[in-house]
């Protein structure tokens, strides 16, 4: 929004926009509260007694009572939920039974690995998916269109963990082109631990900042396969959506006008039409970014990638419910946040959306 806008209707438009954002924020808060309610309910029906897991089997009645009071389990349900929400809002997601550290701290430690993976995967997905979708849309019914469709459908039909295993088998086991599971070779892991200052927690960024290009190269060889696997899924989604948006755009009159003016076809498609396609596409890309969080649970297990997904599954197998639910809240919150962000971006970019 420019400050030089001096048209008389500007203030009212600003006001309307502010109102729209306020509504969005309210919906965001309501959804977040709902998220917490669901995890709260799950945590209360869990058959594992949180008191017993803290004081141990042989505790006396008095000790159990004391622990109950300390945990606030003697209060009414609605009050417990209130405390839960207040804690969550202040960033307190409870303590992990496994690591004996606050869940929020654990999540902050593992999240950069997932973020790094999802970001590279989304870049792959956009770089492959958008051109594929445009190619398919401009040649409907041809073999290119069918091929793009089939590649997309295959992506919707393949279990991500299986594709990851097959990738490991082919590119790591047989061809030896990429690094194996984990974020770095074990030798480089030590170097990264001691020689590289931690800035973002993302290995690619931190090593680049420190100028340690040998570690950087090793990290690239490790991330390329899992990111490629996840990127394939976002490509399947992005190419499909790009195709349908593009088909819609190409039937518009301004496209005919541009063609009649004698504009070269590549310019009509890649400049005029694509510009308008980008608007709804931003939403799609944000959604696929959010979906990658989900795919990362299985992918991280296959590639021993120490991110949020692996953290949640590890906690699951150790019956560490605070960590499972804390991780679930964080993933849900990021998911909701990205959805909301795509909504806001859409409103900002598209002048028609009011």
């Amino acid at each position, binding site marked *: 929004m420019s400050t030089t806008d001096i048209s008389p209707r500007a203030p009212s438009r600003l006001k309307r926009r502010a109102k729209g954002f306020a509504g969005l924020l309210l*919906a965001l808060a*309501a*959804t977040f509260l*709902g*998220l917490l*309610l*669901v*995890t709260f309910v*799950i945590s209360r*029906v*869990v*058959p594992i007694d949180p008191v017993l897991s803290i004081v141990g089997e042989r505790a006396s009645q008095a000790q159990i009572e004391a622990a109950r009071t300390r945990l606030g389990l003697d209060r009414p349900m609605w009050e417990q939920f209130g405390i839960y929400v207040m804690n969550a809002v202040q960033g307190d997601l409870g303590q992990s039974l496994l690591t004996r550290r606050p869940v929020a701290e654990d999540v902050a430690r593992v999240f950069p690995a997932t973020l790094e993976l999802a970001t590279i995967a989304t870049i792959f997905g956009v770089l492959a998916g958008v051109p594929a979708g445009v190619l398919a849309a401009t040649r409907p019914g041809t073999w290119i269109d069918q091929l793009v469709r089939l590649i997309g*459908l*295959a992506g*919707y*039909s*393949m*279990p*991500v*963990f*299986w594709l990851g*295993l*097959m990738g*490991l*088998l082919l590119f790591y*086991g047989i061809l030896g082109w990429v690094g194996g599971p984990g974020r770095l070779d074990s030798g480089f892991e030590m170097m990264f631990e001691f020689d590289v200052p931690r800035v973002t927690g993302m290995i690619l960024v931190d090593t680049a900042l420190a100028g340690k290009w040998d570690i950087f190269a090793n990290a690239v060889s490790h991330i390329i396969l899992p990111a490629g696997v996840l990127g394939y899924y976002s490509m399947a989604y992005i190419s499909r959506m790009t195709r349908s948006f593009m088909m819609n755009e190409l039937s518009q009159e301004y496209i005919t006008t541009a063609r009649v003016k004698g504009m070269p076809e590549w310019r009509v498609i890649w400049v005029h039409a694509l510009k308008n396609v980008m608007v709804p596409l931003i939403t799609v890309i944000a959604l696929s970014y*959010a*979906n990658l*969080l*989900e795919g990362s*649970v*299985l992918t991280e*297990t*296959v590639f021993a990638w120490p991110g949020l997904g692996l953290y*949640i*599954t590890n906690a*699951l*197998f150790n*019956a560490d*419910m605070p960590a*499972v*639910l804390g*991780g*679930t809240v964080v*993933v*849900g919150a990021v*998911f*909701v946040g990205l*959805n909301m962000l795509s909504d806001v971006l859409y409103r900002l970019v598209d002048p028609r959306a009011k």
Partner: protein
Amino acid sequence: MTTLTTWLRDHSPSSRLQARAGQAWLGWLRMRRNPLAMVGLTIVAVLLLMAAFAPWIATHDPIAQDLSQRLLRPMTNGHLMGTDEFGRDIFSRVVYGARVTLYIVTLVAVTAPVFGLLVGTVSGYAGGWVDQVLMRITDIFLAFPKLILALALVAVLGPGIENAVLAIALTSWPPYARVARAETLTVRNSDYIAAVRLQGAGPSRIVWGHIMPMCLPSVIIRVTLDMAGVILTAAGLGFLGLGVQPPMPEWGLMISSGRKFLFEQWWVATMPGLAIFVVSLGFNLLGDGLRDVLDPRSTAK
């Protein structure tokens, strides 16, 4: 045969049954022109047959262990897809696995859409605060990534096939509620609903008898398109060891046990994954074809 087709093609059907059969026939003809949809239909039919006749198709007992025959390559000693680490025949396990997959898919397909349909139609027809509350709840469930919520639910309920079905159903109803609500909003103010209301029908009768049938086609399309997703989620839960428990032959679980031998005995993890891939692809192709046939908007062009 010819009398049957003329009966089906009759332009002035004399009964409701004939009209419906004629419509279905036209749809079938339209779908037959789409080769990819027919491939999908064939795959799904093969899956059904495989599940129904598993004992006759399987060459070995899917659970019987024979440690002298462990980790054999495909096509040795009569093992089409080789054997796993307990000497069990992988082909037979894949065939029996079709039963497990179909069991999960069927249970989810009859629970989640019905619940979603109920929520969606009630919400759309009632409007007002009922609509607001129900849709907020739907939004909350939509806000969770499916697999993560299913994981948390299974963690609480304990692993097992029934709990996996419950977790998947609980996470997959919201889209049906959305679809059903949208359909309800388009028909709730139409004349025929007003006519039914004037005849004295109550809200429950209107929703059940006159609105739900209108929502069925779009919900059915959604269900077929979602089946692949259900199969993948179930396999994912199985892979993590949270779904079906051993020694039952579930495809995801089989992949996870083959993981340990990935680089030496590649077939243990590869074969069940291929089965998942082919079956999901079948459902996706069939769903795409059905959408083209049943969705009036896409037939218009």
